[in-house]
């Protein structure tokens, strides 16, 4: 009986990594599936079991643990971080003069991908043109940022006669993102006086020029989401993995222990000295990458049980620099809440009809 209970607990809580496949992947704890368990949704039970531990946090990336939540909701947060948190990015590129060898459309594409440091929460979406209107809405100060790139390459008069280094021969031959200047429109100069608006990174190479070539470009940035175009995605990437769990089914000693240690990532298995022999012990299964290398060795594969904890998510969020990663996670959660509220509003208004 106890073995059956343990098995049921394992099916409910663990994903098993086997030699030829992964088992127990799907969530099965719905009401009625397991006799004796009350799986109905209970907010208090969720609140009691749920916790978030921030492991690492700096300006561009963070790693945190979300424990006690289901994969469906954790995945929703990940998807929203990638595709539905809005940012500002260059959308319209007005090319007045481009005599460089980079084609207009290639240059426009590159400019669009440059992350622009402007808090998207302070801007609004631009009203899209409806089918009837033929004149486009001019951008206003509340939904557009105007940037300008005006640069001309010339020969350096002070270069020595026999040098062949372009850095010495030419002036302004590499166009970097630091050459993109912000042109405030309307009252933006007062509103954004402390935090200037411009590209996040100064050293993104946009184009290369030679003497006589120049670029004269005006750009409009609008607010958008990653679903529309990947340039609007605020994260370099956002991903999660489940916490690995390694159990040793029997004591492993000596040479086998050394080999077992090498099958896992560094720091997972350590060898302890017990009565003169080295015995393997699982110290920390968190850094393991679950490569299942141990299952390739016939004598070691039955000694170890590999699995993952189904509701412990280790999130890694790397921001492109527009918003700090903790703000991004907060915004992502708010986006999901807004989606729910939107449909609740629709339900209410359709009920009243």
């Amino acid at each position: 009986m106890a073995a059956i209970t343990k098995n049921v607990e394992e099916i409910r809580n663990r994903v098993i990594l086997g030699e030829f496949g992964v088992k127990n992947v799907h969530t099965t704890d719905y009401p009625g599936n397991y006799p004796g368990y009350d799986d109905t949704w209970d907010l208090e039970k969720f609140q009691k079991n749920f916790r978030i531990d921030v492991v690492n946090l700096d300006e561009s990336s963070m790693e945190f643990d979300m424990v006690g939540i289901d994969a469906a909701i954790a995945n929703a947060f990940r998807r929203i971080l990638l595709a539905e948190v809005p940012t500002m990015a260059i959308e319209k590129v007005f090319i007045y003069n481009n005599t460089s060898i980079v084609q207009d459309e290639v240059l426009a594409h590159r400019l669009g991908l440059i992350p622009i440091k402007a808090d998207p929460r302070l801007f609004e979406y631009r009203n899209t043109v409806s089918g009837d209107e033929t004149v486009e809405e001019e951008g206003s100060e509340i939904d557009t940022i105007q940037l300008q790139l005006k640069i001309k390459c010339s020969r350096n008069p002070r270069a020595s006669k026999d040098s062949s280094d372009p850095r010495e021969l030419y002036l302004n031959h590499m166009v970097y993102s630091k050459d993109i200047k912000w042109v405030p429109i309307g009252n933006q100069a007062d509103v954004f006086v402390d935090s200037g608006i411009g590209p996040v990174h100064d050293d993104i190479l946009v184009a290369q020029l030679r003497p006589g070539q120049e670029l004269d470009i005006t750009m409009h940035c609008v607010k958008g989401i990653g679903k529309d175009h990947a340039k609007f995605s605020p994260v370099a990437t956002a991903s999660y993995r489940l916490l690995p769990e390694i159990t040793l089914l029997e004591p492993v000693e000596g040479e086998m222990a050394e080999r077992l240690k090498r099958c896992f990532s560094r720091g997972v298995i350590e060898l302890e000295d017990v009565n003169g022999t080295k015995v393997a012990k699982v110290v920390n299964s968190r850094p393991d990458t679950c490569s299942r290398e141990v299952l390739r060795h016939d004598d070691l594969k039955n000694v170890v049980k590999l699995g993952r904890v189904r509701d412990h998510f280790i999130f890694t969020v790397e921001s492109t620099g527009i918003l700090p990663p903790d703000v991004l996670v907060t915004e992502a959660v708010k986006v999901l809440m807004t989606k729910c509220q939107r449909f609740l509003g629709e339900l209410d208004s359709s009920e009243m009809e």
Partner: protein
Amino acid sequence: MAGEGEKKPVLEMVQADGADEGCVTFVLHDEDHTLGNSLRYLIMKNGDVDFCGYTITHPSESKINFRIQTRGGVAATEPLRRGLNELSDVCQHVLNTFQVSLRVRSEQSPPVSCREEPAINGLILICG
């Protein structure tokens, strides 16, 4: 239907003729697995619900068909409404917990940027 000034639909209900109110397919526009899967999870956790599932009819169209079949004569809009409310509550709680853990972290000893991982030895038992 109506003329040019019509708003795009956001939520539609499709019901088979003659079937009771408990079996309804909702069409949610401009949605995908993000809301679909998380909502399906929470509605399945409802004891009244007999069947709950969603499909993306075609990947080029961003809409989902969300079907709910209830047991015991409950109208299908009720588990949907409850699921949306519960998802909203979950998000609120996640937000609060996250803010608290950020605050706790910033109040602790000065910001350490070295990669020090807490020794979490993976066994989290969920007592049902």
